[in-house]
């Protein structure tokens, strides 16, 4: 019996080739966002009026803008951490990851290409695994571009962020993206519905953000806070205090488990 050994990594490479332009656009957008906030640092630095204004905000407000609840605009890491890690960065990387994760299986199924891919002698589980790898590579590339921009622009505008702090922050971003993207990928693989994949992944990302924010002000949600990937990744303010490795690994493991579970259903369902 002939056995065909398909080129290893071919599906990953194909997905990366197809997503090249989107990746470049997102990497540039993240770097530009970093540049913009870094460029404002000289006008924030030493200006206590901002900090005074912020201090008058009720804790609920502060909880929504910061992952950990602290608002410190007096240091570069505190300032950039609030601006980039409190909401905007995680939201944007989630959008990118969800669109990429949805397109990987359910999107292709909608567009009619999945039957051709799966007509090749390649197991469905392998298609999913290779596309998850491509998602991880894409997110790593966006995180790397963001980190590089942080390093360059923090030097340019006198912020002097440490390399370890930058690495912690962008690792948290990438892993948060992987979590949201994994939900989209897994739901899409399990159901074949791009709309459902997008919706549930967005819901998961928003819920993890809201649980973390509201747990800071309402005692009923407090027990749920350690279950929020947003809290596990950003609650420690990684740009200031580094990444909490066990929490990050837990989110990573959850993302991989989701993809594996999606793969099990994917192998057993009818194609749409």
């Amino acid at each position, binding site marked *: 019996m002939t056995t065909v050994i398909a080129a290893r990594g071919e599906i990953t490479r194909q997905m990366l080739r197809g997503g090249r332009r989107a990746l470049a656009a997102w990497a540039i957008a993240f770097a530009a966002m970093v540049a913009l906030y870094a460029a404002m640092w000289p006008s924030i630095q030493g200006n206590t009026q901002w900090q005074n204004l912020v201090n008058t905000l009720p804790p609920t407000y502060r909880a929504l803008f910061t992952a950990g609840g602290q608002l410190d605009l007096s240091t570069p890491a505190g300032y950039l951490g609030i601006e980039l890690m409190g909401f905007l960065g995680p939201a944007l990387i989630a959008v990118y990851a969800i669109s990429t994760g949805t397109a990987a299986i359910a999107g292709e199924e909608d567009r009619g290409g999945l039957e*051709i891919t799966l007509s090749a002698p390649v197991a469905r589980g392998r298609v999913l695994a290779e596309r998850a790898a491509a998602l991880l590579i894409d997110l790593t590339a966006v995180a790397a571009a963001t980190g590089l921009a942080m390093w360059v622009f923090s030097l340019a505008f006198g912020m002097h962020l440490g390399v370890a702090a930058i690495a912690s922050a962008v690792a948290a971003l990438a892993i948060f993206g992987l979590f949201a993207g994994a939900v989209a990928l897994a739901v899409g693989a399990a159901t074949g519905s791009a709309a459902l994949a997008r919706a549930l992944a967005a819901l998961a990302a928003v819920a993890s953000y809201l649980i973390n924010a509201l747990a800071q002000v309402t005692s009923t949600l407090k027990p749920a806070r350690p279950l929020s990937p947003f809290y596990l990744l950003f609650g420690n303010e990684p740009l200031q205090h580094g990444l909490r490795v066990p929490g990050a690994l837990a989110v990573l493991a959850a993302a991989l488990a989701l993809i594996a579970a999606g793969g099990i259903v994917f192998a057993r369902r009818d194609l749409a």
Partner: protein
Amino acid sequence: MTGPAVVVGAESLTKRYGRVLALDRLTLQVRAGEVLGFLGPNGAGKTTTLRLLMGFLRPTAGSARVHGHDAWRDRVAVHARIGYLPGDVRLWPRLTAREAAGHLARLRGLDHDQGTVDLAKRLDVDLDRPVRELSKGNRQKAGLLLALLGDPDLLLLDEPTSGLDPLIQQEFHHLLRERVQAGAAVMLSSHVLSEVEHVADRVAIIRAGRLLIAESLATLRENARHTVEVRFACPPPPDAFAAVPGITDVRLDGRLLRCTMQGAVDPLVKTLGRYTVTDLNSREADLEETFLALYGQEDPR
């Protein structure tokens, strides 16, 4: 049973979607070296059958085996030797046909370049434009190219000639013949008999999920109705032909007999021997009429 190897074997293959029975206990074989034309009106279950054979759908009951492997459980082994054309050819919209062929060839572990260029020449495929910019017919040709890549020994083709101009259709039939002579098996679906009658060795006709008939075209032709006209030297008795097996629509008008024979004309010829026949004219009903008769006169929806 001897003869060429059974490549596709469906055994009571059934697919149900909720309360809709899409395919009802289909039992069918395709052997190496033959082209099976899979005919039926739209919605009869042709695409469902092909997708079950590809392992894209799980059978509700029954099973399908391809090259001896279960189509659902051993998909990867089955796919190693199949070329597949989906009914709705959309491919990967952003890739050119050349890029798509390269990708698929690498997934199949093929050395692709020569095959792609040759096939593209024969099928007149534009290799260098993104598939989404191609017309339906040109996309169809690109899809055929992908299905034929690497000389698979089973081709499952869903409506392969829809949207093809006649010249390309002819070339495509040549390509199929070459593959079949090399021992490949082909199963191609259509809702129009004329698209398959020049290339198929056998036809299977399906309607509302049920197989009506699976016969060689030669047998189908033999069983086709014949319209017969006979002129006699002197008028035969009025009921001279009433007892001939298979005769219908008898109209005896003096020295002229007009009738329809179901199947072979031999019983009529034996009876005619008793009389002096001055002229004999027999015309076979065309296959399309036979086919429509099997469809059950209904307008193929």
